[in-house]
């Protein structure tokens, strides 16, 4: 059984997929306000791994130099495709082979173009984050690709949507068009003070979403829905209001929609990253 384990500033969220007679389960381990040090997180994870007998797990990597980019390539030959990836990695992701680890995955072909996702992360960050766990991870995702995977596996996967995963101190934005992620961006310096977004916060996020929507190609800006997940989605009103900011219907994104899982009502919105990581490990 593979676990998806998502460590946020305030808590550890985990999802275990069903296997045999074992049902799918998710859970949260709150970290005390006065001790969120790596040593404490390591200790909590060690106890969790021992209690749950975790052998396989995937976790999402984010922040601190983790970069991701989705781009289209008209190359068909794999070596030319790799050249394209190398160019994008060098100039758009500022990939440094002495410092970073690079991974890329060709996605769907649309017309004569192949969409590719490439991510780069500093080796030091990967090792530091991996070092929090008592075992080696089966894979390491990025939070951005995990969020994209969560959407692609849901009923929203074939629609044109923009999703914002907003926790108290981190934010990820993904745009999916016809079953393909076309924009994935991490939003830096997030500081969500209240569960319900204030007027000031709404104004700020309105500008943020409008600017980021402009990163999309002209022909991809027509979207159907705005989805919200994370701690901000615990208040469904936030999704509706933020959607209205960019003239879209806003809804909360529950990755467990249609999935049998032991989860508290309304808390599913917290687990898209952990859930996608668990799926990635299967």
């Amino acid at each position, binding site marked *: 059984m593979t676990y998806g384990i998502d460590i946020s500033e305030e808590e550890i969220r985990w999802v275990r997929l069903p296997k045999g007679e074992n049902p799918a389960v998710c859970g949260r381990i709150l970290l005390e306000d006065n001790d969120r040090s790596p040593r404490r997180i390591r200790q909590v994870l060690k106890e969790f791994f021992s209690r749950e007998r975790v052998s396989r797990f995937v976790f999402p990597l984010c922040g601190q130099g983790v970069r991701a980019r989705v781009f289209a390539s008209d190359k068909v030959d794999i070596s030319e495709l790799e050249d394209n990836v190398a160019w994008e990695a060098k100039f758009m992701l500022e990939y440094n082979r002495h410092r970073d680890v690079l*991974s890329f995955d060709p*996605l769907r072909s649309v017309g004569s173009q192949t969409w590719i*996702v490439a991510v780069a992360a500093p080796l030091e960050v*990967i*090792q530091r984050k991996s070092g929090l766990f008592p075992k*080696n991870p*089966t*894979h*390491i995702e*990025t939070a951005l690709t995990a969020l994209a995977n969560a959407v692609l596996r849901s009923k929203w996967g074939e629609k044109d949507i923009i999703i914002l995963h907003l926790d108290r101190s981190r934010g990820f934005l993904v745009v999916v068009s016809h079953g393909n992620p076309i924009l994935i961006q991490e939003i830096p310096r997030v500081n969500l003070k209240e569960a319900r977004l204030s007027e000031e916060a709404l104004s700020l996020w309105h500008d943020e979403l409008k600017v980021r929507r402009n990163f999309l190609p002209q022909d991809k800006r027509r979207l159907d829905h705005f989805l919200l997940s994370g701690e901000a989605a615990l208040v469904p009103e936030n999704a509706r209001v933020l959607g209205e900011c960019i003239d879209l219907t806003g809804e909360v994104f529950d990755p467990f929609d249609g999935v049998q899982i032991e989860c508290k009502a309304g808390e599913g919105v917290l687990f898209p990253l952990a859930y996608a990581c668990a799926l990635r490990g299967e």
Partner: protein
Amino acid sequence: MIQIDLAVRRRPEKLTSLQFLLLFLGILLGTSLIVGIGLILQWNSLNNLADEIGELGVKRDSLEILEAEIIRYKDLKDSHSELMLVMEDARKDTERRLDILRLLRTELEPGMKFLSCRIEPDSVITRCLSPSNVKVARYLEELSRSGLLRVIESEPQGTRQGLIEHRVLLKIQ
């Protein structure tokens, strides 16, 4: 599903009891295997050594035989050398006796006859017949002049065949 993987393998910080046990068993089996192979190789080399020792033993025996032969050969050689020395001494002694005998005969004065002589290691006793004592005196004088003999005494023994018989004692020089 996007297949992105940034995982970098790292060494586990601690071994579990099972891993430790497996590692221990692995090391034990590996060591036993290496020791076993080593012992087999050692056994083979010991067998080879035993064969070589056997061959060396045979060589040693033949060398001992050769050594005994050499010793015997040396003994024989020494004996041969001694015999050669004895022969040489005997030859010299014989030559000396022949020289003395030749001297005793060639130095006789006309009318004198040589009867016998006995040659000892350091002296000679000879008997001869002479018509006169003067000729015996000349004969003894010639023997002394040779440097080989020195006259100790000359003693008349009577007459035989009308000649005077003399017995002469000479010292070999």
